């Protein structure tokens, strides 16, 4: 049963969409080249959990994605599966299948009982694969695909004299199939415009679903695709409103912001236990979670201004985090409580939370350069040039020099012409965060010398981290960056700042108060999101644009 709360959320989302329609008019664009992309590790896990439940354990290593134009999600469009990676996928497929057909799960996950558990039962097998195949392939299985799957199931059932083991092999076939592991864009002739193409309804459903939920379409979205609703603006708007009102949007946006802010690096983050004894593995995971909670609370639950993420003092706290922040948290371990940093804490914005501070530092010390680079790259979508090959860092590291603080050392280092260019880009930002050590704990001095955390961001001067927060909030690049990244994330294609569609989205974002939910709706319902270039160009430009 659909709750009243949910119905109201859908209604409000639809109303917002209607209001948004009064804004700037979407320009006509050529569309996104067709392509295939490999499911990310998180998407794979999400789909398995959605289809079979969270009790199914997925364990194995996934071939890495390569960050392209700022996003792993864009790299996914060029990534395949290596022989070593396939060994892992095949093993994962068997393990998942074995769990699904196990004694403990079959009653729930297999919708029928075979005539005999010791023999093949075509009717029951077909019933099972019709249901799960549609969810895993994101479309109904074709007749020949069903036939092939049933043949495997029959062979295995007969060989092992066990229907469920047979179903397990059939399911493994689905899970190792390219139809599951890769999301393919499929175009079809557009009956309304002769000579042009459109994304077919199931491809559109998949694009919407992975964009907003980071998972495969649910049954209702597939139904909308089957009925042709996604070919109409009204049907699309209705489904997008439903998806944005769904709690699953949080999963999708956590995935997006994790990608945008480089949170995959948390997988290998470590801090020196002697220098930062409070920053253990639990604190590291809580730091990531804290920022994601801050983001989803502000941009989804509060439907707030995206730029406020960089000035907000409101967040959530746990005891392990409290030990690093040096604040008293009374709730038990593992319990989150709302928290607001006091003004005197000098913490404002997610860039002053442990996640971004610790992630962009060394294991045993802070790094104004890494932090400045992270702000430029992740928050402002700017490129910091690679360091030159022949750098002399001796002025930076000389322990006998009188330079006690990072600012002193970097100033000395930056006197070298080869280094000065890049450090001018990164350091005025990073040095404003020097009030936080390599783990993110507040400090006022380094090596006995008071820290000067003044700086400037593209001409806007500030005296401390709070000033940096305001400068970020007011920087047009901050809002432009999230629009750019979301557009790329949605289509899988690098998006130039000068792109007509992105410019349109930027204007729309600003005119609607920098509301991310509104931006999501605008992207998901725009023509450019699903437009397909003419046949000759549709399948040939992916690689070139990625480069």
């Amino acid at each position, binding site marked *: 049963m659909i709750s009243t709360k949910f119905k109201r959320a859908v209604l409000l989302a639809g109303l917002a969409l209607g209001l948004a329609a009064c804004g700037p008019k979407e320009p006509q664009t050529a569309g996104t*080249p067709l*392509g*295939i992309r490999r499911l990310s590790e998180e998407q794979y896990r999400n789909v398995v959990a959605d289809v079979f439940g969270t009790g199914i354990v997925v364990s194995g*290593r*996934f071939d*890495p994605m*390569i*960050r392209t134009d700022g996003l792993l999600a864009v790299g996914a469009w*060029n*990534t*395949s*599966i*290596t*022989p*070593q*990676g*396939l*060994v892992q996928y*095949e093993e994962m497929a*068997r393990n998942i299948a074995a769990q699904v057909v196990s004694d403990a799960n079959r009653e729930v996950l297999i919708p029928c009982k075979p005539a005999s558990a010791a023999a093949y039962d075509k009717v029951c097998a077909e019933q099972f694969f019709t249901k799960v195949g549609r969810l895993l392939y994101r479309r109904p299985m074709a007749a020949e*695909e069903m036939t*092939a799957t049933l*043949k*495997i199931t029959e*062979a295995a059932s007969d*060989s*092992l004299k066990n229907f469920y083991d047979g179903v397990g*092999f059939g399911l*493994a*076939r689905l899970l*190792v199939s*390219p*139809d599951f592991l890769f999301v*393919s864009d499929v175009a079809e002739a557009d009956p309304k415009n002769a000579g042009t193409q459109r994304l077919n309804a199931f491809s559109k459903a998949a694009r919407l679903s992975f964009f907003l939920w980071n998972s495969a379409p649910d049954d209702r979205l597939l139904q909308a695709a089957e009925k042709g609703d996604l070919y109409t603006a009204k049907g699309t708007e209705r489904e997008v409103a439903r998806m944005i009102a769904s709690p699953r949007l949080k999963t999708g946006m956590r995935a997006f912001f994790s990608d945008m802010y480089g949170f995959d690096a948390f997988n290998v983050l*470590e801090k*020196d*236990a002697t*220098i930062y004894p409070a920053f253990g*593995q639990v604190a590291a995971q809580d730091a990531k979670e804290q920022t994601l909670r801050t983001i989803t609370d502000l941009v989804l639950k509060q439907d707030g201004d995206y730029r406020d993420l960089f000035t907000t003092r409101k967040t959530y706290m746990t005891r392990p985090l409290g030990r690093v922040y040096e604040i008293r948290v009374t709730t038990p371990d593992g319990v989150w409580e709302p928290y607001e940093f006091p003004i005197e804490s000098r913490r404002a914005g997610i860039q002053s939370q442990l996640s971004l501070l610790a992630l962009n530092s*060394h*294991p*045993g*010390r802070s790094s104004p350069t890494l932090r400045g680079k992270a702000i430029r790259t992740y928050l402002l979508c700017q490129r910091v040039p*690679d*360091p030159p*090959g*022949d*750098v*002399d*860092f*001796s002025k*930076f*590291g000389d*322990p*006998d020099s009188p330079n006690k603080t990072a600012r002193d050392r970097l100033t000395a280092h930056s006197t070298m012409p080869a280094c000065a260019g890049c450090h001018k880009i990164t350091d005025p930002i990073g040095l404003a965060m020097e009030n936080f050590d*390599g783990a993110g704990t507040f400090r006022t001095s380094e090596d006995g010398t008071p820290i000067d955390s003044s700086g400037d961001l593209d001409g806007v001067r500030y005296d401390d981290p709070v000033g940096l927060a305001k400068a970020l909030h007011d920087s047009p690049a901050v809002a432009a960056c999230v629009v750019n990244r979301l557009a790329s994330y949605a289509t899988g294609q690098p998006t130039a700042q000068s792109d007509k569609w992105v410019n349109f989205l930027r204007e729309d974002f600003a005119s609607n108060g920098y509301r991310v939910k509104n931006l999501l709706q605008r992207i998901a319902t725009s023509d450019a999101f699903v437009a397909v270039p003419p046949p000759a160009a*549709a*399948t*040939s430009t*992916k690689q070139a644009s990625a480069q």
Partner: protein
Amino acid sequence: MTVLLPKSAPRRALLRGLLGGGATTLALPFLDCFLDGNGTALAAGAALPVRFGTWFWGLGHTPGFGVTDKKASGPGIDFLTECQALIPHKDKINYFGYFNTPLDGRSNYTHFSGWVGSRTGTAPVTGDEVPAPTFDLLIADVIGTRSRFKTIDVSATGNPRDSYSARNTNSRSAAEVSPISFYARLFGPEFVDPNKGDFTPDPRIMLRQSVLSSVAEDRQKLTKLVGASDKAQLDEYFTSIRELEGQLALQLQKPEPNLACQLPPKPAETNIDGQATGVLIDTVKSNHAAFAKLMAMAVACNQAATFNMVFSASLSQLRKAGESANHHSLSHEEPRDPKIGCQPQTSWFNARSMDALAVFVDAFAGIREGAGTLLDNTLIFAGSETSFARVHSVDNIPVMTVGKAGGRIKTGMHIVGNGDPITRIGLTMMKVMGVQVDKWGTKSLQTGKTINEILV
């Protein structure tokens, strides 16, 4: 009943027995001596296999602290401070000095261009481009088809992304980082002990093959739907499917009895400062030592004929507990001690890398195989990404080879490159391992000249 199977007749015949009439046990007698009189071939006449692997460490050597430079190639390597641990092994090693990595005006992407140039034969155009397959994979294409896994990638750093083997920019595999998981993958329930007398082909393996065969039949359908660039992605996927099918086929055959293969003990979990993996030097050393033993036995047991082992990343993050600077930052920031003529802490980390290489060599040299050791039948390419990390130099990157490749190469040589492209070493490795290649590399890295001084 229809069974989907690849077209090979023996498996089809075997399946008829297994799937139609229940499991069949193929009992084969265990022989006491499987080798010929010379100890270089199996009694059945098949030569002992020759294996290939790479071993990587980050940040090279301090100039003047790795080896004594020579003016001309010849026997004898004079290992210095950072390579003390290799002295007992110098007769098993070749050292290659003064081979360069010309970048033809392309940027020196720090800690990247060096390994990409030396392993792919082409200098990268961007800081993340892998423009061609690394040569270990070209060797694996040739010799990796007769083992359970085509190749295995392992990193002692705790980061699965620390791998220097790639087919291209977007085709890289994740390295195994846990010795316990590695053990389970290699020597878990699916491991077939070659020295057990009885052998029963597992019908489940045949069914797994059938699954892959069935998937492979979708190739035509899918490639029709996609463009050229997507075809490359699908091609790689379907190649992976075909290779896994072939590897499963091997598991249906009784493995050759193999006295060198002994099921190793399960490794204990590393727990240093509460961490099982990571870049603390003691953690890395512990995990590397565990990996070395498992890798050597994996190779001896024909689980893989090619492998890649990473001790530290190109941007080595190795660190000591309680120290704020790690290996990489030390390499740039640590002042040179005028009394000893180097950066002492950086040099200390460099030396630990060579300690680890010695551990790896010991693991292979410690397994008797035929008349010699596993190392005699293996060729290991050990290399870094810079020569002098402080200035990111990609000329004179230290490279060594270890092992005799089944008697195909001489060892104990110090080869002087005189500025020749470093690709001469990779080309020589490929030729020794049977890759049909005359020229390798592009632009100034292209070469057709092998290093004949080490060839037998």
